[in-house]
């Protein structure tokens, strides 16, 4: 059921018309295309994807890269951050674990160890600020993506009245 059908159905369920509901206006708003802007080069996209998947791997729900987190980060750097900050971030990426090429050829276990070390150093004197920012972007990019929000978490756009339930009834956190 798409949103239009849902809203029209909703007015039927509620037993009254919703005359003011301008469905066209609701549908006409912009939609983020989810395509790469080309700001990050291929090697950088691969590097970000690999690290994103180390943080959020595939389980019974998709991994970070499978939901397009690398493209989200590319878009964020290109369209959201001021250019200077975006360039600094990319510089930071290149210095984070040494050569990107080299990192990508490591075994998955070795990659995990490298990222684990960066993660362990969060909130300490040895914190890597690029990793801190990257992790934040991976988490936001994943859990606010359609798959992250609806599969990893619970997404309930029109819940109806607030009510108490047992956690077991949904088994996961709401977006």
């Amino acid at each position, binding site marked *: 059921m798409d949103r239009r059908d849902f809203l029209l159905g909703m007015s039927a369920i509620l037993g009254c018309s*919703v005359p003011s509901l*301008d469905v066209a206006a609701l549908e006409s708003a912009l939609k983020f295309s989810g395509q790469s802007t080309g700001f990050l080069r291929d090697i950088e996209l691969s590097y970000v994807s690999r690290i994103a998947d180390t943080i959020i791997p595939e389980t019974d729900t998709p991994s970070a890269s499978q939901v397009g987190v690398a493209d*989200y980060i590319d878009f964020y750097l290109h369209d959201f951050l001021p250019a200077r900050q975006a360039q600094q971030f990319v510089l930071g990426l290149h210095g984070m674990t040494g050569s990107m090429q080299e990192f990508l050829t490591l075994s998955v276990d070795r990659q995990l160890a490298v990222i684990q070390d960066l993660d362990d150093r969060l909130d300490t004197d040895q914190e890597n600020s690029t990793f801190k920012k990257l992790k934040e972007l991976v988490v936001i990019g994943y859990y*606010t993506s359609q798959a992250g929000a609806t599969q990893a978490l619970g997404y309930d756009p029109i819940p109806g009245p607030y009510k108490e339930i047992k956690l077991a009834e949904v088994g996961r*956190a709401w977006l």
Partner: protein
Amino acid sequence: MRNREFDVIVVGSGMSGGYAAKQFCEKGYRTLVLDRGEMVKHGQYKTEGKAPWQMPFRGDVPEELKAEQYIQKDVYIYSDYTRHHLINDQDHPYEQKRPFVWYRGSKVGGKSLIWGRQSYRWSRLDFEANKLDGNGVDWPVRYEDIEPWYDQVEPFVGISGSYEGLDVLPDGKFLPAQPLNIVERDMKQRIERAFPDRHFIPARVANLTQPAKQHLELGRVQCQARSECPRGCSFGAYYSSNSAALPAAERTGNLTLVANAQVQEVIYDEASGRASGVAYVDMRSGERKRVRARVVFMCASTLASVQILLNSKSKVFPYGIGNRFDVLGRYIMDHCGGGGASGMMPGYLGDYYKGRRPGGIYIPRFRNINETHGAFERGYGFQGAASRASWQWAKSAKGIGKAFKARVRQPGNWYFSMWGFGESLPKRDNRVYLHESKRDQWGMPLLVMDVAYTSNEQAMIRDMSETAAEMLKVAGLVDIRPFEGEALPGSAIHEMGGACMGRAVETSYLNKWNQCHDVKNLFVTDGSAFSSGSCVNPSVTFMAFTARAVDFADQQLKQGYL
């Protein structure tokens, strides 16, 4: 528009103006509403229902856009979903002689589109406060004068609440209350047992828990617990001028609404001693217009109404219409805040909820009622809520891999947070005035803010913080974090005062009917009319005074006095 086409001009279409328009239109008066904002029709809310992945920045706002809203960017609801409902600060500057944050709506409907919807009656104590402690000007009205008008306004707005029988927070005409959750119910028991004079009750909010006939007739239906209110709600499930008062006015056929109209001046007619109408600028064409009516209602929001009145200069009133005694712009108030506490409630991990509730809990004022608190006068109430942490914590937390992902998938612990809203004292020196030379691009003189809190507010905020922590401890919370932030005047978005009601023209601007002492067909019924601030959210009281003033004006018109 031809001259004399209208009986009434209402300036502003927010909480007060929307309701004034409805009442006048329903009484048969040809009513012109002028609003500075852009038009937004109910239902045409461009970010409503959008999921985060449908927003380019997932709800965040880039720096260059924040720069256009350098004041508004700090409003608690500010995001890419809501920023178009807030004013562009670069286009609408003001001067801060002392720091003041001025949050403003940018659309027809004003702040009624984005308000917090907490709706409480004022009490007997509130209307007597100035008289009792000598601050400010004594109100020319008491609770009994306003009570019937709350009775009229509340059912139209649609306010959910519980009946508590408290003197300090009178009950109203309520729809069923929003439920407390299990953690809040247990906290309520423990806090009320430990402190018999403190009451932990469901927040009273203008969200329809059970719509009545008059709501359904306007297409307003039950709250769906989306918690997207400030984006606008096609369900009409929370009250706004756009969803309720303006459509109700429109269906009478008596409403004319002009958007993008910046009213600059109320015109004084020396011959009759009355206001003859208003002058405004069409903000898109720059064209200047004058329009006449028998009655003018100022509902432009507290500070904007004062700004327009100060700018309404004539030979008789060189310092602003009706302002012979330098009363206009004085006694500016906001609720002081920034004090509170949060903590974690252990356990309850099998309990959860569905939906995003539009209001949490409220603890009505308990200070300076039966006993005297030594450090400050008047009091404060708390708003708060208990909920479980969701994924957001993971942004800055340690952990990677499958275990991390599994942990994020589960809701976290229960947290409870509460923060105070305190009554600031009306002080004559807390004032606003017009800048002598600076004007905005439409030619309106800028407002200068000269308002500051005193030691009374500072002591109150400290007490909020200590008291909140004490209550959370009693309620069984751990990891309690009191906070005592600096909240500048304006930041509670409850500006009041500036055109205060009172008994004498020498000390107040309005009489007990919200009528300008010196100009009988000029009424001011937004927050600027308020002689004191209470500690409860003011919107529904703006509306009650508006309803009462419209009724009075109607009688005066019928009797030929206006």
